[in-house]
């Protein structure tokens, strides 16, 4: 296959990838979009095989590795529970990062097969491009591994900080640039390897100070990095499909990070600097003094049955308790009693963008009952009961009233405006931001202390 023809096919697959993302603008077109993406990938891979035209022994090995990886991927895709999506995505990011590093290494060791010159005499531009690809890829890899471990709960979600952390990161970052500079000057292996090693270290150090509550930002940011790494490699390989994809993924991740930061009213820089989620000492002190009203499933069922409208506010706690199916059953029970039920999803509810929506969809909640914050916030005032399950910080009115609070300025769901509030929670402990929620102590709040799933199931029983 001629190079021009294959370049055109790569362009086609790039366009198909754009259509894949475009399809996600509504659930109705999204499945077709995904098929476009698959088609684009098939075209890209087939064209690569045809343009190399080498169907020798190597081809068999390529195929074996392709199938081995593919079957593992397929198995994971079918087995993974929806609650584990954040970990899965973090894990997948790490693979993209590592693959980018490996491709860069092969290109560095064997530049002839990529038309980049000969070892020790690689074209300057290619050398810069592959170094950037490798460095970002390595940062993505080790950063995603840390994110994976934190999300999986293998590593504590609390931020790990030490003195001079940011200074060390800055120093390491600069040393990567210096190493790339010297690598370009004399093309020595040792500069290349140490540049990659330091990049791995940077990824590690970059993510460990970031706390659990900031994970949605981290995961989006790593998504973005994996795109830039792919684009860097795309420039090295002079491959349009890869350049287009890299740019798409890079900007997609960047936009998601922005949306997540805005959802928490935090600047991107402060997320990166980390250390968020340290318990607020002041609020801890007076916690025991204030009285709370607590109730049981019977009270909750009675309250909601007699309401005319209920808004359900799900949070990460619902995901942890796997309570989404029980919540759907409860909503069904309420609807039978003529209650209007809707769901309010905060942008940063859960551990990744859109996490709650997927869980509700899994439990067969129709997507037209699920509303984003800006579309439902005004409805709380005319709602009888707000049922908050596993969410906390995103409902905390202190974000509006107390400029001293770490979550001050964060857009919240106006749960407080509804006539009564039900909180399903295991204890009075503050949320990830470490801030006490004054809503717990209000007169119109009823606390339901229990596991989210058990409590919801109890309520369902009492409804019938």
């Amino acid at each position: 296959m001629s190079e021009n023809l294959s370049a055109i096919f790569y362009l086609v697959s790039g366009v198909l990838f754009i259509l894949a993302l475009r399809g996600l603008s509504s659930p109705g077109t999204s499945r077709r979009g995904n098929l476009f993406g698959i088609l684009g990938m098939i075209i890209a891979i087939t064209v690569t095989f045809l343009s190399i035209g080498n169907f020798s022994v190597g081809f068999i090995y390529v195929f074996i590795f392709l199938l081995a990886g593919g079957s593992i991927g397929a198995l994971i895709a079918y087995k993974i529970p929806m609650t584990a999506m954040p970990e899965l995505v973090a894990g997948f990011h790490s693979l993209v990062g590592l693959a980018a590093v490996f491709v860069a290494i092969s290109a560095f060791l064997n530049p002839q097969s990529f038309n980049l010159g000969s070892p020790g005499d690689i074209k300057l531009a290619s050398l810069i491009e592959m170094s950037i690809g490798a460095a970002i890829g390595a940062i993505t890899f080790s950063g995603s591994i840390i994110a994976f471990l934190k999300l999986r709960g293998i590593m504590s979600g609390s931020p790990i900080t030490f003195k001079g952390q940011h200074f060390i990161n800055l120093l390491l970052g600069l040393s990567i640039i210096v190493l790339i500079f010297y690598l370009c000057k004399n093309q020595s292996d040792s500069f290349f390897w140490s540049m990659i090693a330091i990049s791995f270290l940077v990824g590690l150090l970059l993510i460990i100070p970031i706390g659990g509550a900031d994970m949605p930002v981290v995961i989006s940011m790593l998504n973005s990095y994996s795109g830039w790494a792919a684009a860097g490699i795309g420039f090295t390989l002079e491959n349009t499909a890869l350049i287009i994809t890299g740019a798409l993924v890079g900007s997609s991740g960047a936009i998601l990070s922005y949306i997540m930061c805005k959802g928490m009213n935090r600047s991107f820089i402060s997320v990166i600097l980390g250390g968020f989620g340290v318990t607020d000492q002041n609020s801890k002190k007076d916690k025991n003094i204030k009285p709370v009203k607590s109730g049981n499933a019977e009270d909750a069922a009675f309250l909601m049955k007699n309401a005319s409208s209920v808004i359900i506010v799900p949070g990460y706690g619902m995901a942890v308790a796997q309570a989404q199916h029980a919540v759907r059953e409860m909503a069904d029970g309420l609807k039978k009693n003529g209650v209007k039920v809707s769901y309010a999803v905060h942008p940063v509810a859960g551990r990744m963008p859109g996490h709650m929506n997927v869980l509700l969809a899994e439990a067969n909640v129709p997507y037209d009952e699920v509303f984003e914050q800006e579309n439902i916030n005004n409805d709380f005032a005319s709602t009888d009961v707000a049922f908050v399950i596993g969410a906390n910080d995103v409902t905390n009115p202190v974000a509006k009233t107390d400029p001293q609070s770490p979550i001050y300025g964060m857009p919240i769901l106006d749960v407080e405006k509804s006539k009564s509030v039900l909180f399903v929670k295991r204890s009075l402990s503050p949320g990830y931001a470490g801030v006490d929620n004054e809503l717990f102590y209000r007169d119109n709040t009823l606390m339901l202390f229990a596991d989210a799933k058990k409590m919801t199931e109890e309520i369902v029983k009492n409804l019938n």
Partner: protein
Amino acid sequence: MEIDPFIFRLSIFVLSIFVGYYVVWSVTPSLHTPLMSVTNAISSVIIVGAIIAGLSGDIKSIFDTSNIFGFLAIFLAAINIFGGFLVTQRMLQMYKNKKKNK
């Protein structure tokens, strides 16, 4: 003077960033999780580079270091491609509206 092909690639890159910017803003927030998993899958088109690396050289040198890194990259990218697209499809199957549900 002829324009360096790099400039063309850079143009594609810059324009794609803009395309990405507008396309991603039009993605509905409720599909942000599938967006992440599908971007994950498509960024694994890096497998193209891995295949070139894996197939380079003749039969004798099929297990050169650079080939082996190519094979490993194929393996990793393949996990991502299959895993990413399939898990996205699985998620998207769950999104139903009221009418279809009843």
